[in-house]
């Protein structure tokens, strides 16, 4: 293995620092020499070089599928990157369930929703519903959780009301649509409304979505942000650990500002 430059970290194809990529996309034109050239130039426009059109074929009437290999020199200064980590141990569903029953001694109450105009419940459902995601079962299935999945297009205020009514320990906000950063403003909306009512410390606040990062969620005022690939057990474990942290705190030093995780 060659020496890795952490100040300009690059993808690895088959040689250190070759910066190799594989891409695939569809162009809304029929395959032709011109289409091939268009794909080549387009990939170059994206900052790649050494562009190889490995495959071009027809899809349907007048579309073409491309598989392209290309390289880049534009890396990232990995050494300087600071990304808060969600940390925590990886635990299985059974283990988390056992820990909750042993240490929290009651089911943790969770209310989740997609607020605003967002009707994409795929992320929320993956975490909350029984089915779960990639074989990792959802929180609904845990004995240690009592879940309410409010579904899509829930007004923020209704989510708060429901969380109060259910005496929720945690609120899950799922944001898939991110046009014009609507996911961020809807996340802020929840924090602002909670603050107005003095409730921001009351719940463990978790956001999730393809364009949500843990870092961004912390900045907005959430306790955690989960993105694509997060499993129900990751979320369950985080909630459990937060619960324990909070229970410890109420036992030793009641009612002070909550500590953010990962800091």
């Amino acid at each position: 293995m060659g020496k890795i430059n952490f100040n300009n970290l690059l993808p690895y194809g088959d040689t250190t620092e070759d910066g190799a990529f594989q891409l695939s996309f569809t162009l809304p034109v029929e395959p032709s020499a011109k289409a091939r050239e268009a794909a080549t130039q387009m990939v170059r426009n994206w900052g790649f070089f050494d562009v190889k059109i490995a495959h071009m074929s027809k899809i349907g009437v007048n579309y073409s599928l491309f598989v392209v290999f290309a390289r880049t020199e534009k890396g990232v200064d990995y050494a300087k990157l600071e990304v808060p980590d969600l940390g925590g141990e990886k635990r299985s569903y059974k283990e988390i369930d056992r820990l909750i029953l042993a240490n929290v001694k009651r089911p943790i109450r969770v209310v989740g929703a997609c607020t605003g105009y967002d009707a994409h419940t795929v992320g929320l459902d993956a975490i909350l519903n029984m089915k779960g995601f990639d074989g990792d079962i959802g929180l609904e299935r845990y004995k240690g959780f009592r879940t309410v999945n409010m579904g899509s297009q829930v007004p923020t205020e209704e989510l708060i009301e429901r969380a109060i009514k259910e005496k929720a320990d945690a609120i899950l906000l799922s944001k898939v649509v991110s046009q014009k950063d609507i996911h961020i403003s809807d996340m802020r909306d929840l924090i602002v409304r909670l603050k107005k009512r003095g409730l921001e410390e009351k719940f463990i606040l978790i956001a999730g979505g393809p364009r949500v990062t843990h870092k961004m969620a912390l900045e907005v005022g959430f306790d955690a942000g989960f993105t694509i690939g997060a499993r129900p057990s990751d979320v369950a474990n985080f909630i459990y650990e937060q619960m324990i942290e909070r229970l410890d705190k109420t036992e030793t030093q009641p009612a002070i500002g909550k500590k953010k995780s990962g800091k």
Partner: protein
Amino acid sequence: MGYASTIPLSAKKIARCRQIAKSIGAQVADLVKTNSTVGTERAVLRLLGFNEAVPNEQGLLFPVANLITDQVKAHDRLHEGALYWIANAIIATKNDIPKLQERVMALEVDVGTLAPQDPKQVKSLAQRLAKESFQKLIQSRKDRNQTAKKLKDPVKEKRPLKYVIVATGNIFEDVTQAKSAVLDGADVIAVIRSTAQSLLDYVPQGTTTEGFGGTYATQANFRVMRQALDEVGKEVNRYIRLTNYCSGLCMSEIAALGALEGLDCLLNDAMYGILFRDINMRRTLIDQHFSRLICSKSGIWIMTGEDNYMKTTDAAESGDQVLASQFINEVAALNAGMAKNQMSIGHAMEMDPNYEKVILMEIARAQMTRQIFPEAPLKYMCNTKYKSGDIFTSHAIDTIFNLIGSMTNQGVILLGMLTEAVHTPFLQDRSVSIRNANYVVGGAVGLGDEFGYRSDGVIAKFAQKVLDDAVKLLEKIDDMGIYKAIEKRTFADVSRTIDGGKGADGVFQVERGRYLNPFFELMGSKI
């Protein structure tokens, strides 16, 4: 030890399952006999031709079928059936159906308040109206058969139909994607509905260009897609089947609209609504019967949703509940007079790919289902539960799915998408998926006939155990009653109660001797 072309399964046990399922079906039949729902009444109105809509206070289009049902209900007349009061209105106003619809839309006529006419005359007119509408339905089936006959029908080839979804939210974008899929090799196009449309207690109106995770099922959208598939079907000389979803609060209504617009298949399963959409069980079981009557006489295949149970349970262990539910679904379809070759009974390949011998177990399940329902064009769904963002592994799983579907002669294979866990499929995702299926399905034609199953092998043992467990489970369900069984988490690990769930207020008792729904008889209901 010997080998045979099929898995040795006890014919006696299979017959026993059918016998118990019949008894369970009778429990539902009792419910259907004495009750109706607002959804069923609206479906009657749909069949009669009340398919327009008026803008409501919020500016949304509100269907005339709902308007009339509400009028009749508001004046406590619904227990005699919507048709009775339509016939009454026609006699009272001397309008025909189009004129009456127009005047209801203009709010000039309230079907609920018109003076009652001579019941004898009303009844005889109602019979005639139903008969005419029924004839229209039969005609529309004949027309469809004519179209199909002019083209090659992939059902006649010895291979599974390739089924793909489109789900852009915009029916016109869906058309582009559907046509592309057909040109790539798809045989069945399913237009996924907008998220949670199953919970709407009305059918949206007109062509729609915005939806969430899917496109609204509307009569106009059905028509747009039907026309597009007929066009592209002609181009490729293949009859292309169109399917949509009717489980939900408008189960029978969507069946009516689907029948009028020439749909070939409908996802149709009350259990799906009960378990996964929390729809009241009485409501949707009653609606299911009418929707299946309509499908039955319109030549529409019903597709059942047992594959969903496998997503919430361990599919290696839940084979018994899937099989039990399939038998119950079969009886419900038979009670609607449906032919066995219209029952696209559902199941799936949903076991954990990390299990050792998982492929053997999946072959066992698929082959067993094939043998138990020999005439059914089985609906076989690819793995979704163990799909992740790792699109490469996902694609490998789909390949094995296509192979198992081919070698066990499934009727329809619901092709997996490599991006299943990421987004609704891109055009290229669907294309790559169809290319995979073209290769495997084409390459494996007749594969199943070349090999036998060991009589004492892993596959035989697995299948036999599922059947044994299914007998026991069906006995248990029959003992406690289907409603209690659902409450006790028999299916999909979900509990629902008889009075719980959405749409319960839309169920009403019918007045014996006065309630009119001649479609039951015309369509050959066995209930």
